[in-house]
């Protein structure tokens, strides 16, 4: 559709009789002649000049004013143009690169969006088959690169050194150590990198042997041990949960970070009812996890009870009687689950997150005996490799002075080890210690050398997340600082001149690519070859002849029955502390990332903190309470917890669904070094993480004081307003008419009941012309993971406001995920209760408190882009108005900040700039320094104080799609329109598109029986639609 529009100045131009006049005028740019001669001509002409004295004075006046104005110093903005413009960079056009994050905790194939050479956004790599889903931390990882707390160059004893000195020194020290017969040890994160494994092995051979110890801060030792014992490789089985009809999980938080994470995509596929079927998910767990929150049935048990439960589950399946005692309801639930699993046969899968070799081995055995289709032990995952026992023997070696040189990469044992003290003592006895780190963290401060490490967006590398599935990591920006990656240093120490890039390329070309193009592989970021010559599976297993760390072979019984018997003997004594990782913080390596600190936890909706989660019954017994302050902020008591002689004071949060007799505490907080003061929040839970075991017996005492939480949601139940978050059961969904379980609201118009959407006071726009955008949110498949929240943050330059402002309910998130607990045992019972006694005072207050083991539901809410928007009518200056494509638009420049729109918004999605959040020392986060501001999206304006802001349905993205298609002269295909949140959603719960394209997925979703509008009875006609949540309540 090339444009042949003709622009004209006036109607006169179009008249044919004027054509000659028009032509003359067109040729003559200045219609009136400029009297240059009069000023610059001969003096004699001055008398005859038309310039009068008055004119002269005007000119003088103007010149003086102009000259003096020009003399004032204007603001200087540095904008340096390219001298030689790189071919691939066009200002204003984004470039995307396929890459991979592998920071030792998060492993995922990603697409990196760069603008003018700056990475600004990390999103899902749709083409990748495994771990294509970027979770909240991965999306936020881009900001961790622009972190002022990064170590900016190599250091020795705290002083800057050059890389050549550092490399020469370390090389010499290593030779010296070898000569003295001392050990050279590499203590690294899990790389899952075939090239790194090969390189380390080559290096080891070159220097005569190094020990390679792999250490995962958050251990999956039990799963690895069990798998290793059964299948011979230190890896973890993979699961395709979309193939499972029955999922029974024993403390496996598989929607979050269980065994490396990445399962939510396949899980969600089975959660949307199609052809009358959906999966059934039963969860036995102690902490209220994201996974438990999504389960159809959740049974709260203490960690030792969960062990007994899995044993009894095995017993129920095989008909063997297993000892140990469980509460009666749990016993029933176990039997029912076993019955269902047996019935489903190969369509069932059993998962466990218990850090117990027997439990893991039992789960593997059960899945194998079921020949579960979801279970894939043949191509396992390599994303966790750590071995805690070898770390312990390393500490022993260090303390006995056996270690000459210790090279640490991507680990911070002085923060993450419970045994940090003995590690520190050992470290002082190590001759030379080198730590490759991005931060001057606890370990870096105690090491001889700090080798500044680049961020993954500045590095080369390769990753084998799952056997046979290779992916590449490529830099998307020139290193910001004087950094060197470990692999490059290693090549240097070997005296090898090649760079790691060349090494990876060489390695891939010879062993992996099988003749296909390197460039293509780099472009795609992923490559699949199940029979490649190199693999990450032998990472940590150094070449033959070298000294390997001997890990004690796992002693496992031969039969599954024995595992079960051992598990059933789990004793239940006192209170058990279960350490877990939060969706936002993970293992804590991104603690200095303000997006993640301000990310509301999907379950507790708390920010900037970790806390002891305690059940209501225990809290009452121990005297803990949560109260609301005058401004609605949440306050909590403090508890002193003691594990094994180590104690800490932590705030208490009463957590519905927490198993009585157990408490939870998140790892990853309380980091002090390499972290900005504002973000040194929470309590470090690693000191309780003895021997990498996440369950510890704990003593709890109440201590005085009140902790001020920063929670974004103070009301946790729906108060019987089931209409807001609609749900039904699979049975009803399959058997009843949609009117029954998803009634569309009706209003009276002309004394007739009509659907709310039909009643109208306004003259309607014709919305069938052009594009009309809708966003569908499927409450069945939304797991509440929050990747969309961070994606929205990144795409739209949403400011970070800090803990004290969040406590005042001034969070700026354009997209939030509401989490509701049922007040009775289910949401359905809540509604029934209201119907039984409407308006009774007791009903009110009872419905405000969540049940002890509630049902949980998530509901992402952003601006609903109402076609009849309450906000639009009330703005006195028309700063918010409706676009022809359905968006409710916010015109920041016009906004005077009356906040009337926010008051009148039934969805409360509007966010006000209470202060200036950018370039203000009071809000010293990424928007207050030049480095952090590099992450800002140039397509979206940074709002000033005093204006309202809200979700724009990523108008900058839809508009770009439209313009691109227009320039290319083509129609837009379904799926091209995306918002940041819909693109970040790895479960497919968010679908965005043009409803005027009748073939589009969104058009079908809009007509779906499950479709409803949030608060539809208000007649706001939102362009955001929800799909009713369906629960599979079918018991065996």
């Amino acid at each position, binding site marked *: 559709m090339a444009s042949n529009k003709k622009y004209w100045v006036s109607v006169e131009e179009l008249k044919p009789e004027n054509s000659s006049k028009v032509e003359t005028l067109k040729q003559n740019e200045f219609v009136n002649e400029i009297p240059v001669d009069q000023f610059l001509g001969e003096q004699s002409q001055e008398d005859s000049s038309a310039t009068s004295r008055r004119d002269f004075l005007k000119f003088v006046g103007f010149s003086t004013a102009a000259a003096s104005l020009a003399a004032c110093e204007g603001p200087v903005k540095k904008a340096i143009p390219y001298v030689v413009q790189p071919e691939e960079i066009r200002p204003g056009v984004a470039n995307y690169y396929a890459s991979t994050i592998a920071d030792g905790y998060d492993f995922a194939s990603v697409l990196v969006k760069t603008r003018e050479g700056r990475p600004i956004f990390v999103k899902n790599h749709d083409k990748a088959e495994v771990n294509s889903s970027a979770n909240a931390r991965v999306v936020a990882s881009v900001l961790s690169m622009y972190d002022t707390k990064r170590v900016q160059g190599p250091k020795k004893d705290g002083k800057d050194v050059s890389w050549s000195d550092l490399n020469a020194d370390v090389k010499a020290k290593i030779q010296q150590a070898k000569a003295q017969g001392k050990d050279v040890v590499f203590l690294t994160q899990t790389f899952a990198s075939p090239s790194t494994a090969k390189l380390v092995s080559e290096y080891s051979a070159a220097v005569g042997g190094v020990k390679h110890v792999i250490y995962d801060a958050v251990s999956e030792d039990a799963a690895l041990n069990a798998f290793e014992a059964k299948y011979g490789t230190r890896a973890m089985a993979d699961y395709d949960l979309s193939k499972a009809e029955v999922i029974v999980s024993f403390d496996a938080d598989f929607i979050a970070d269980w065994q490396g994470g990445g399962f939510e995509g396949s899980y969600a596929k089975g959660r949307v009812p199609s052809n009358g079927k959906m999966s059934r998910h039963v969860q036995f767990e102690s902490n209220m996890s994201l996974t438990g929150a999504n389960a159809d049935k959740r049974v709260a048990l203490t960690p030792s009870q969960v062990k007994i439960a899995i044993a009894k589950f095995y017993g129920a399946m095989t008909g063997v009687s297993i000892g140990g005692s469980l509460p009666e309801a749990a016993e029933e639930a176990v039997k029912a689950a076993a019955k269902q699993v047996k019935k489903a046969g190969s369509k069932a899968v059993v998962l466990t997150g218990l850090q117990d070799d027997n439990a893991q081995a039992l789960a593997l055995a059960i899945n194998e005996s079921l020949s579960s289709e979801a279970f894939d032990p043949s191509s396992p995952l390599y994303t966790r490799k750590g071995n805690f026992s070898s770390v312990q023997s390393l500490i022993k070696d260090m303390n006995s002075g056996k270690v000459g040189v210790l090279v640490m990469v991507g680990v911070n044992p002085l923060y993450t080890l419970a045994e940090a003290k003995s590690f520190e003592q050992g470290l002082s006895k190590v001759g030379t210690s080198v730590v490759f780190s991005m931060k001057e963290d606890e370990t870096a401060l105690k090491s001889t050398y700090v080798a500044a490490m680049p961020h993954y967006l500045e590095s080369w590398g390769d990753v084998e997340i799952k056997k046979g599935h290779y992916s590449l990591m490529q830099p998307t920006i020139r290193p910001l600082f004087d950094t060197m990656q470990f692999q490059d240093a290693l090549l240097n120490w070997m005296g090898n001149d090649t760079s790691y890039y060349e090494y990876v390329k060489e390695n891939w070309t010879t062993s992996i690519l099988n003749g296909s193009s390197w460039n293509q592989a780099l472009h795609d970021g992923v490559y699949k070859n199940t029979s490649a010559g190199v693999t990450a599976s032998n990472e940590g297993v150094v070449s033959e002849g070298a000294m390997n760390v001997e890990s004690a072979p796992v002693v496992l019984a031969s039969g599954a029955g024995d595992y079960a018997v051992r598990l059933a003997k789990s004793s239940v004594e006192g209170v058990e502390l279960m350490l877990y990782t939060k969706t936002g913080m993970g293992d804590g390596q991104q603690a200095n990332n303000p997006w993640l600190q301000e990310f509301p936890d999907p379950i507790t909706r708390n920010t900037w903190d970790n806390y002891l989660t305690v059940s209501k019954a225990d809290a009452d017994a121990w005297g803990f309470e949560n109260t609301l302050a005058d401004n*609605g902020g949440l306050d909590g008591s403090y508890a002193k917890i003691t594990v094994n002689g180590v104690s800490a004071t932590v705030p208490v949060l009463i957590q519905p669904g927490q198993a009585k007799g157990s408490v939870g505490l998140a790892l990853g907080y309380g980091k002090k070094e390499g972290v900005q003061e504002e973000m040194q929040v929470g309590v470090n839970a690693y000191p309780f993480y003895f021997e990498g075991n996440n369950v510890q017996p704990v003593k709890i005492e109440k201590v005085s004081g009140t902790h001020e939480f920063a929670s974004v949601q103070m009301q946790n139940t729906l108060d019987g307003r089931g209409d807001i978050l609609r749900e039904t059961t699979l049975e009803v969904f399959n058997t009843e008419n949609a009117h029954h379980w998803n009634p569309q609201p009706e209003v009276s118009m002309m004394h007739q009941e009509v659907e709310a959407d039909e009643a109208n006071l306004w003259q309607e726009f014709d919305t069938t012309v052009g594009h009309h955008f809708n966003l569908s949110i499927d409450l069945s498949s939304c797991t509440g993971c929050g990747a969309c929240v961070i994606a929205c943050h990144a795409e739209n330059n949403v400011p970070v406001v800090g803990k004290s402002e969040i406590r005042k309910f001034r969070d700026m998130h354009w997209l939030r995920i509401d989490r509701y607990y049922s007040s009775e045992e289910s949401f359905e019972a809540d509604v029934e209760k209201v119907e039984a006694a*409407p308006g009774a005072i007791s009903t009110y207050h009872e419905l405000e408190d969540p049940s002890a083991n509630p049902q949980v539901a998530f*509901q992402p809410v952003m601006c609903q882009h109402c076609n009849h928007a*309450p906000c639009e009518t009330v703005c006195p200056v*028309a700063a918010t108005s409706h676009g022809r494509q359905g968006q409710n638009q916010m015109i920041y420049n*016009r*906004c005077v900040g009356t906040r009337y729109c926010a008051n009148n918004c*039934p969805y409360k999605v509007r966010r006000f700039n*209470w202060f200036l959040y950018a370039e203000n020392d009071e809000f010293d986060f990424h928007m207050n320094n030049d480095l952090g501001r590099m992450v800002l999206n140039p397509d979206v304006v940074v709002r000033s104080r005093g204006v309202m802001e809200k979700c724009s349905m990523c108008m900058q993205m839809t508009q770009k799609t439209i313009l691109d298609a227009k320039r290319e002269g083509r129609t837009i295909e379904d799926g091209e329109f995306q918002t940041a949140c819909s693109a970040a959603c790895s479960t497919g719960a968010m679908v965005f598109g043009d409803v005027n394209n009748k073939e589009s997925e969104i058009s079908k979703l809009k007509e779906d029986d499950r479709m409803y509008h949030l608060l539809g009875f208000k007649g706001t006609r939102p362009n955001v639609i929800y799909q009713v949540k369906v629960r599979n309540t079918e018991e065996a």
Partner: protein
Amino acid sequence: MASHYEAPIREPLVTGDKTYHDVTVDVAAPVEGRANKQWWIVFSIALVAFLWGLGCIIYTVSTGIGVWGLNKTVGWAWDITNFVWWVGIGHAGTLISAVLLLFRQKWRMAINRSAEAMTIFSVVQAGLFPIIHMGRPWLAYWVLPIPNQFGSLWVNFNSPLLWDVFAISTYLSVSLVFWWTGLLPDFAMLRDRAVKPFQKKIYSLLSFGWSGRAKDWQRFEEVSLVLAGLATPLVLSVHTIVSFDFATSVIPGWHSTIFPPYFVAGAIFSGFAMVLTLLIIMRKVSNLENYITIVHIENMNKVILLTGGVVSVAYITEFFIGWYSGTNYEDYTYMSIGAATGPYWWAFWALIICNFIVPQTLWVKKLRTNYMWSFIVSIVINIGMWFERFDIIVIDLSKGHLPSSWTMFSPTFIDIGVFIGTIGFFFVLFLLYARTFPVIAQAEVKTILKSSGEKYKKLRDGNHE
């Protein structure tokens, strides 16, 4: 109008054997005399409060609205509460001077001047809040439909906030003109009595060259009547429009069709309470006991009783309809069990006690003719009406449709400072007024002296005997 016959059983409106000259002297006394110590003390306190408020306003404007206690859910609190409260107070003046004029209520003459002064000063306070509550108050002029160079930008005539702009500015200007018109003969009186040339100059400017000719008086009467006719609909319209801010919204508790009459009644209720508060003090301080008598107080108490009754019926209606609707979205509005038993129970009960229960005592004649009790009740009503607006705004906003967004509000010292500042500003203006303006419409009072003055009444009644 002076020749109306008045029944002898009616209480005189001017007591204490006042002659025409006495009236002149009494009204001119505060202006011509020197301020006493008490005046200076009260004025100093008011000035300090005003300056403190000014400081808080400057801090707010320079730092951001974040210095107040608002949040994402409660976007208005003290700011609009104070706005509506001040506007409401402003209602009594116009009602007294315009509506009572049309109804030929002579007792208004002693109080209309001060009531109108109060109106104007409180509307000034009210007008402050819509401006400073804006995120970017320096752009406040954007709410005016001024032709501009921004392109096709225009104000949004759908917005009740815009209607407010027109309503308040109209109200302020009409009230000001009406007030000043009434002041002209009285300023002329002061001018004629003034001895210092400077004072004479000032009062002759203020009196717009009033000469006291019959033509002046004729025009004066005509203009007063016309302005009274113009101002009467404003009594109803201003608070109706203020109530539209809430009534046209979609928020439970705000979206209520009875708001306009209910708000108007509430405004008159609070306005009369404030007039009572001010005049009970003033009649003592300015020695006006003979002009502002218990008759006036009782009459005003009766108006309070009536409007208070209207307001009470509105509360009951709101409570009942919310409950009767059967929708649980109405469970937490400001008139609901949820509010009465929720975290804002104290605000709910403050409203009920102050506006609903305490004014009922005025049914007792002994109490409504008692100065002290009237004064206490008037203060209580002022507090109650502030809570009414606070409840409507904060309680309704804090628990809206989606429970996930429920929050609470607690004021910062800036919120409180701004409010106290406006009270200070109001009293600074009122105290200056009391020392420089004729606080009683003496020209009008003189017109009823023969019919309702105690002295003449006695003379006349004596003749009958």
